């Protein structure tokens, strides 16, 4: 079974037309010694019925968010996705098209991406946005490389430890072989102290990277950070949470030169990590240094408004090794989803979503922090995510709560040894008061059992704990 339409007769007729006698002969250019003369050792073909049963069984071995209440965050969130988003993304003409190289046959996608770019500009308060990068982590790396091409003489990058650990790790990996010195600024109190930045920054500094709200959910002081950065002649790169912009000041307002983000929250499923999309916006003056595709407006020969891929001289297929980035395939369908999502919410919907997240998160924080042995680790305003310190082994606690039906949080010790006893809890607009109260009593009761020395289910050795630290 291979979705091939050629029947044996078709094949005979085609081989005859080509003038060869067998399919094998079509591969004559491949030296026999290099050919595989056995079947591939991959599982046998499954019919649609068998495949369907198999997938349902495998799905049954997962515990998705609809089955265990999800309080996990750390860069991916269980936000609600209106059905309209799926309906549009499910249109054949959108999801089975390739990159819009032929504008006459791709106006649907081109207009949608032009709308996407505009929406991201409106969201960030910046001048231009591209048509998506892979996701939030490589987005930070691309932003730093972009900064480097804007300020080629400078080589020092300052990044706050409160930036997503995996983003920092991605940046380190991307730049391993480049002449860049990356310095991580500690954030012991859950945010980057502007004075610490003042001390670290100098004339060699290319850019400063901060995340607001940061990995702990805490608010940074982006205005001060931006000012300090600009005073040193460096560029300020802000990593943001798109949903938070329903309430918070926009990167363009607090002085970001380049703003990047993980766009998953905008109508994309969590899907165990991807596909998501990277958002990148910046000031007009830097547009020709931008990575990724750009859609521009123009007119056809009859003066009819239309859209095309433009400024392609930045891109690899024209510029090759001198391109601003190597990106080719991007995250088009996710950008379409984000476009429908933002249009569906509108200003009011985005505001209310952000508000619900904040209020519910603070309600959860208050209730949880009232439990004995549990306290808020950071005394700092936060958006939809907060850090709890507990007097128990976090992995055991998480595993115990999973058995009670809760994905209760993330073990921060994984990335921050000093936060070994901490977990990060995220609350979206989907969470109900009942679910939050449920988490609170589940945690309370688990702790009691612990203290009374009757541990809940022991956490099966969770290898995530051996995780490397970003």
């Amino acid at each position, binding site marked *: *079974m*291979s*979705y091939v339409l*050629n029947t044996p007769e078709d094949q005979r007729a085609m081989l005859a037309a080509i003038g060869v006698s067998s399919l094998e002969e*079509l*591969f004559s*250019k491949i030296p026999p010694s290099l050919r595989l003369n056995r*079947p591939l*050792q991959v*599982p046998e073909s*499954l019919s649609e019925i068998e495949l369907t049963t198999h997938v*349902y*069984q495998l799905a049954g071995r997962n515990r998705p968010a609809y089955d265990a209440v999800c309080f996990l965050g750390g*860069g991916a969130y269980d936000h609600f996705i209106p059905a309209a988003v799926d309906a*549009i993304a499910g249109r*054949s*003409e959108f999801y089975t098209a*390739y990159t*819009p190289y*032929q*504008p006459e*046959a*791709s*106006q649907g996608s081109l207009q*949608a991406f032009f709308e996407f770019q*505009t*929406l991201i500009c409106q969201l960030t308060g910046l001048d231009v946005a591209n048509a*998506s990068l892979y996701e939030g982590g*490589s987005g930070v790396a691309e932003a730093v490389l972009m900064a480097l091409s804007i300020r080629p003489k400078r080589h020092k990058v300052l990044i706050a430890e409160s930036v997503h650990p995996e983003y920092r790790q*991605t940046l380190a*990996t*991307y730049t391993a*072989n480049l002449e860049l010195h990356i310095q991580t600024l500690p954030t012991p109190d859950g945010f980057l102290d502007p004075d610490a930045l003042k001390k670290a920054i100098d004339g060699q500094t290319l850019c400063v990277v901060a995340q607001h709200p940061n990995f702990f959910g805490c*608010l940074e002081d982006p205005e001060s950070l931006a000012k300090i950065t600009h005073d040193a002649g460096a560029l300020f790169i802000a990593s943001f949470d798109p949903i938070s*912009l329903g309430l*918070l000041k*926009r990167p363009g307002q607090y002085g970001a030169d380049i703003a990047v983000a993980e766009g998953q929250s905008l109508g994309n499923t969590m*899907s165990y*990590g*991807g*596909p998501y999309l990277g958002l990148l916006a910046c000031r007009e003056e830097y547009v020709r240094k931008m990575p990724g595709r750009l859609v521009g407006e*123009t007119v056809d020969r009859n003066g009819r408004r239309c859209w095309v891929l433009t400024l392609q001289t930045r891109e*690899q*297929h024209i510029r090759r*090794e001198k391109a601003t980035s190597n990106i*080719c*395939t991007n*995250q088009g*369908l*996710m950008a379409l989803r984000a476009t429908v999502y933002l249009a569906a*919410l*509108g*200003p009011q*919907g985005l505001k209310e979503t952000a508000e619900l997240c904040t*209020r519910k998160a603070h*309600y959860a924080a208050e209730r949880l922090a009232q439990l004995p042995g549990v306290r808020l680790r950071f005394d700092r305003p936060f958006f939809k995510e907060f850090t709890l310190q507990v007097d128990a082994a976090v992995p055991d606690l*998480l*595993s115990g709560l999973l058995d009670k039906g809760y994905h209760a949080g993330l073990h921060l010790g994984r990335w921050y040894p000093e936060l070994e006893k901490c977990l990060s809890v995220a609350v979206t607009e989907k969470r109900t008061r009942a679910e939050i109260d449920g988490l609170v009593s589940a945690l309370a009761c688990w702790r009691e059992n612990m203290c009374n020395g009757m541990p809940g289910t022991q956490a099966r050795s969770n290898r*995530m704990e051996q995780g*490397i630290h970003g």
Partner: protein
Amino acid sequence: MDKNQSTGLLFELSHPARRTHRLPKCDVPTENPLPASALAEEPPPLPEVGEMDLIRHFVNLSTRNMSIDTNFYPLGSCTMKYNPKRHERLALHPGMTDLHPLQSDESCQGMLEILWELQNILAEIAGLDGVSLQPAAGAQGELTALLVAAAYFRDKGENRSRVLIPDSAHGTNPASAALAGFDTVSVKSNKRGLVDLDDLRSKLDERAAVFMITNPNTLGLFDDQIATITDLLHQKGALVYLDGANMNAILGVTRPGDFGADMMHYNVHKTFTGPHGAGGPGAGPIAVRKQLVPFLPAPLVARSGEGFYLDYDRPKSIGRVRSFFGNVGILLRGWLYIRTLGPKGLREVSENAVLNANYLLSRVKGVYEVPHGERCMHEFVACARAFKRDRKISAMDIGKRLLDFGFHAPTVYFPLVVPEALMIEPTETESKETLDAFADALIRICGEDADFLHEAPHELSLSRPDEVKAAKEPVLRWKP
């Protein structure tokens, strides 16, 4: 049929106080405690659109695209094959889409089993030893592999600064090499469209880290010198990278590892039919030889007595090239595809992809110049040079005119080594009837009047856009 309703820009459809998505009332007492200094005066000035208009807007826009589900789409190098509907149903099962990337291994054993199986399958198809599913697309796969190579040589204490790349290579190859911090050296193609061995030898020394080859190459030719080439590089202690964009030609027929490649990427969104989504998403897993495995990004999926787990404990790893596991949604579709095809089906794919391409070639080669040979693999590159010279008909003119027949244009002006290139890849999922109709159109077009072709397309609602204007005075966003 006129499908113009609500197709102005979203911002032009916007009407104060309209909206689509409404939220529940807040069910907790807590008030919003954020400091005023952090808040914007008002939310972003997004458009305000009602649900009926929103749906009509996007549904009607969609009909302005060509796509696999509606048109033959022989876009060379892109492997636009059928995207099975069962993949959409199964990959969108909430038991798969509703998983958080950081939830505990114990709570996603089903997902981990699939990813683990996919790692092994991709290693087998490559004839290599280790696989990372992390890269988001082919280009990121290239970058990742080159970073792996750099780490490998650093670990061996060797200092190699160069990546050699044939002039027929895709633009991402040199771009990725530069991004990874290497100097790029271009290697000529010979008359046969293959690697010019003398030029390669002349540029090959101990500075060489990696030779990136696309085989079958972008001309649709299998480089029969491949064994010699890989030996040459290995003798110099360098590594061979295979750009796997053309794997659709050789599944189960020959394996990169067997012909000497040490690293490669897959384009799951090509070979294994991840839908292209009008630009993405993709997935660009890489496979590498044993000695490179320690340097792969973390995590990999591993298996123990207790089940499957994400193995982060990889001291020599280059780290990661993105957050979270990878483009799982596309990886899932690739796995569904491979599980549907099985060993026999995978080979059938390549046999029929090559059959279809050669059949199309046989139908048009009398009329169109096809510089490189009688025979091809899964695609071939025709050349409009003669038409251009004699009648001013360009590859672009032909591509645009094809749209009128309901066919998407081939890839034009790539590879750069062929002037007026028309790169045609029919894939295995098209019928002989479709190939014949397409060949008839190609043949008819090159006989048409030149001025008529310069004005093509004629049947679409849009004529050719002014691309120069777009680049000269870029308008990259709507403004009030």
